[in-house]
């Protein structure tokens, strides 16, 4: 019984961080029809920037967390302004191809600066050790769950309760109308891209103490985030939430039952959803065959 509870919490840790990444992917897709292949690499870059800030500040994890989120948001905004904006009005596939090319560039920059070896980022001292909640569980993992949920709720509040969120959602629905009503839609796009990227950067630092840092960490997670949006439905915040937790739990329990097959179990779940509802569990009809 205890083992099952521990596994469920493990799944929750993975699922909630996965949600931060998938939510960013989903916001950017919903707003601009950009399926951002660099998203995973921005997540990795966030972790590495966290590592650098951690070193510069003499081991301040909190500074690393905030700095990575802010800097990656800036990198995302820069990518949007320098490259993606030039494709405005073209088929969404071109965005996908462009961000794919940029992924090579960013990944190689990471490899060039930090090398191919695994690096470690220690969890803050205050969050070390385990806590007994009837079951014994590492404090840091509970912290990751708490921060992820907090951030997810904040993003949801921003999207639904603030005027910025209103503009963001309006831009998703009808960019021309937003433009006509006197708001610079281009700025909204840049900010939306920055928000989604910042979430990835934040997730990178949060996960780094659990998994370590490697240049490939981004692509591995991106694939799982893609599966989340396939299962949940591309562009659906709710779908991303449900599917992240589902994938997290499947992965955690899969590892316990048959370690080397846990990824294959996630794929099986994806294929099952595709057979039943090809557009994803919470999709709004997009992407279906004519």
């Amino acid at each position, binding site marked *: 019984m205890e083992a099952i509870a521990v596994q469920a919490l493990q799944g929750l840790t993975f699922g909630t961080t996965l949600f931060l990444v998938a939510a960013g992917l989903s916001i950017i897709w919903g707003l601009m029809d950009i*399926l951002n292949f660099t998203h995973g690499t921005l997540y990795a870059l966030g972790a590495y920037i966290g590592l650098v800030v951690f070193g510069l500040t003499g081991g301040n994890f909190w500074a690393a967390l905030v700095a990575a989120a802010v800097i990656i948001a800036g990198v995302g905004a820069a990518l949007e302004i320098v*490259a993606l904006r030039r494709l405005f009005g073209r088929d969404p*596939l071109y965005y996908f*191809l462009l961000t794919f090319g940029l992924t090579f560039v960013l990944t*190689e920059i990471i490899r060039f600066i930090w090398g191919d070896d695994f690096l470690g980022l220690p969890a803050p001292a205050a969050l070390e050790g385990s806590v007994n909640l009837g079951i014994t569980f590492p404090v840091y993992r509970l912290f990751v769950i708490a921060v992820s949920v907090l951030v997810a709720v904040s993003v949801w509040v921003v999207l639904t309760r603030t005027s910025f969120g209103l503009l963001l959602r309006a831009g998703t629905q009808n960019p021309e109308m937003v433009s006509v009503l006197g708001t610079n839609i281009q700025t909204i796009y840049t900010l939306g891209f920055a928000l989604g990227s910042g979430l990835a950067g934040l997730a990178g630092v949060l996960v780094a103490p659990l998994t370590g840092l490697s240049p490939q960490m981004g692509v591995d997670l991106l694939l799982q985030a893609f599966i989340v949006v396939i299962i949940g439905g591309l562009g659906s915040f709710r779908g991303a939430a449900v599917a992240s937790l589902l994938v997290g739990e499947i992965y955690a329990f899969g590892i316990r039952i048959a370690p*080397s097959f846990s*990824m294959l179990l996630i*794929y099986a779940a994806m294929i099952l959803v595709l057979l039943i509802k090809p*557009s994803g569990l919470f999709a709004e009809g997009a992407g279906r*065959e004519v």
Partner: protein
Amino acid sequence: MGGTDRRRALPGWAPYVLLGLLLVALPALIDAFLPSFYLPLATEMLIFGLFALGYDIIMGYTGMVSFGHAAFFGLGAYVTGLTMSRLGLPLLPAMLLGVLGATAAAAIIGFFSLRLRSVYFALLTFAFSQIFYQLVITFTDLTGGYDGRALSVPMLWGLPDLAALNLRDRPTLYYFVLVVVMLTFWLMRRVMASPFGQVLVAIRENELRAATLGYPVARYKQAAFVLSGLIGGLAGSLMVPYQRFISPDLLYWELSGLVIVMVLLGGMGTLWGPLLGAALVVFLRDAFSGLPQPFGKHYLLPLGLIFALLVIFAPHGIAGLLHRRRVPRLAREAAEAGELAPSPAADSPRG
């Protein structure tokens, strides 16, 4: 398509014959003027050219961007390599099995992925190709896992008539690959000019209209996808005699992306463009990785930059640049002849 004013004196097939003669003479030319490692490099260009040519059928002609095509390339290589090393098959029957395996995989992946379009389709093919990658690194005993597997098997053809030709001999292997590539190129030109190919182009230009005209669009797309996977598997199976080594790189997403770079660089919807693009990518990769370390191992950085710039500024690649000035005339000629204009007319690859 060769019938422009300047070339009216020459038949349309003349450039191909000249290029073919050049390729046939290449081993002798390399022998005379270049270091000997250019011959395996040329062989590799042809193999990846074949892969890119097959990919052009779905991206350039049918307008579908798959992001998991390395699965077919890798599957062709793994089935061929493993049936040779495990079952002791000679090359040709092993290649046949490799191609069959890739074709079957394409039929299955196509069945699922073609239910969706555009980016969703790309996403699905990506996820499916990663399943094959995952399988290869999971079943370590069979595949060698991340490390791959060296194939220390006798390279025999499986046809007694060919016994005199030694597959380990580099020029022999080059000519074998060249024959396969030339035959496939010729065959695919015929297929793409046939009513079948023209329907694919019609689907690319306007899927709804093609469906309204009564063409079973879904079946045509599936056929194009399977054909493309078959050629990918064929190209992959050629990697076995070429490098006598199989590794998960052969079905990693990086290769799925690189084949798009090749097609886009050369120019989609032309068949010869992707061959050229593949040659350029292989050449660039070799040139960049020849740079002194630590720059050499980061060859993907310049390639990624080139790719990003291409997507922004020249989405029709080299073929598109060549055609740019001629487009109005080509379009006029095509209209007179009742044909469809070649690739520059295709503005966006819709899936």
